[in-house]
């Protein structure tokens, strides 16, 4: 594990690796997003109950899933960072938090916009909605804590600890629909047996989920590189990089 990690625990290598991976994520994102969104919004059949308003699903569900996926990523990075003392992993935590917060906000916002036609109210105190709101709070807490430290190494470590403590919220969000009887939809597509959604609706949804996921990856890498540059701005390799940029 450590042997495998080690070369990339070096800042410069990780910077280069992240730079190499980034375009691939973008290449995967753009077509799947375009196809998914056009298919979903224009061509997929309207829901027999919900009419066209169901199309929000193509934003809502991917965003909600990625909100949680981002948190899981952070939790893993935090664990790696704290246990094996990998500073770069802690940086990844800091880099991911704002993206996760934005995804969460999108999920909340689209959910609220969807709730208005469906349930007749922008907001109800449903278990799933509430726990998603809590997730947003947790994200904000992590970001605020990270910003409150002036020494960014310490800030990263503190944010990692808080991330791990906040993990208790993930199962609560996911199982909230099971544990409480709620207004919100139960699992529709993640069920193991036959998904209870029409295939024509499902395929664009899956494409959207895929594109959101790759975009998440892209954004994490992007912010991670920025974080690296900022933290190591006085190191020789960054200086060299900047000089090369200026010359070229």
């Amino acid at each position, binding site marked *: 594990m450590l042997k495998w990690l080690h070369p990339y625990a070096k800042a410069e290598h990780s910077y280069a690796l992240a730079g190499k991976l980034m375009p691939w994520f973008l290449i995967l994102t753009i077509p799947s997003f375009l196809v998914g969104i056009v298919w979903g919004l224009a061509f997929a059949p309207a829901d027999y109950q919900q009419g066209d308003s169901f199309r929000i699903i193509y934003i809502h569900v991917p965003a909600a899933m990625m909100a949680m996926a981002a948190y899981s990523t952070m939790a893993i990075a935090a664990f790696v960072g704290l246990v094996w003392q990998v500073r770069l992993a802690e940086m990844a935590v800091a880099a991911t938090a704002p993206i996760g917060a934005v995804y969460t906000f999108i999920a909340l916002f689209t959910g609220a916009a969807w709730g208005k036609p469906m349930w007749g109210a922008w907001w109800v105190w449903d278990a799933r909605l509430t726990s998603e709101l809590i997730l947003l709070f947790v994200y904000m*807490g992590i970001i*605020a804590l990270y910003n409150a430290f002036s020494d960014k190494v310490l800030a990263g470590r503190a944010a990692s*600890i*808080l991330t791990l*403590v906040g993990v208790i919220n993930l199962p*609560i969000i996911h199982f909230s629909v099971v544990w409480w009887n709620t207004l919100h939809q139960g699992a529709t597509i993640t069920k193991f047996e036959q998904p209870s959604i029409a295939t024509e609706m499902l395929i664009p949804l899956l494409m959207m989920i895929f594109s959101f996921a790759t975009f998440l990856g892209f954004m994490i890498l992007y912010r991670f590189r920025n974080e690296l540059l900022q933290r190591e701005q006085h190191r020789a390799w960054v200086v060299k990089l900047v000089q090369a940029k200026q010359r070229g």
Partner: protein
Amino acid sequence: MFNVFIQVVRQDLLAAFRHQSAILNPIWFFIIVVTLFPLGLGTDPTLLSRIAPGVIWVAALLAALLSFERLFKDDYIDGSLEQMMLSPYPLAWLVSAKVLAHWLLTSLPILIISPLLAIFLSLQIDAFYALSLTLLIGTPILSLLGAIGVALTVGLRKGGILLSLIMLPLSIPILIFSTMAVEAAASGQDYLGFVLLLAAMLVGAITLAPFAIAAALRVSIS
């Protein structure tokens, strides 16, 4: 080893008793918040008894929150926290003693006076039992979680409100389970499941939180 634990608890209690107001304050705050609600919401007894468990729990949570800042802040300012971190005993162990002392000083009094408030808010007897039970199990979890938050923010100026930002989301699950238990009790249903869930969380918190607190302190103080 055990001696040191006792000594830390003793010193904290002693320092608090020296400032008698430090003991009475959380209770007073709690009472005042609970009485604010009938004032703010009107005095219809059915409405009151309906919102009573929620109000009492929220008040307990806020009282705990307000008193948290004290948990390590004084020790940080006067330097005893540094000293604690340089002691040959495991930091997680010393820190547990401090959390225990804090719980004894802030939550135990609230637990003791809750019957009085139940009367204020026209709570039924079943719901009251459930409320006491959830407070008994839930408040230590709050103290442990809160201590992590405090440990993370103690080195920062203006940590106070950042702390509540960090801590409230973490304590919401406890709030939810507890009020659900009380509601179940009030409507005559079985609430053991919720209580067991809380108990499981307590066990988890007792075993893991001290280490998280210690780690957080090592980050904050450096």
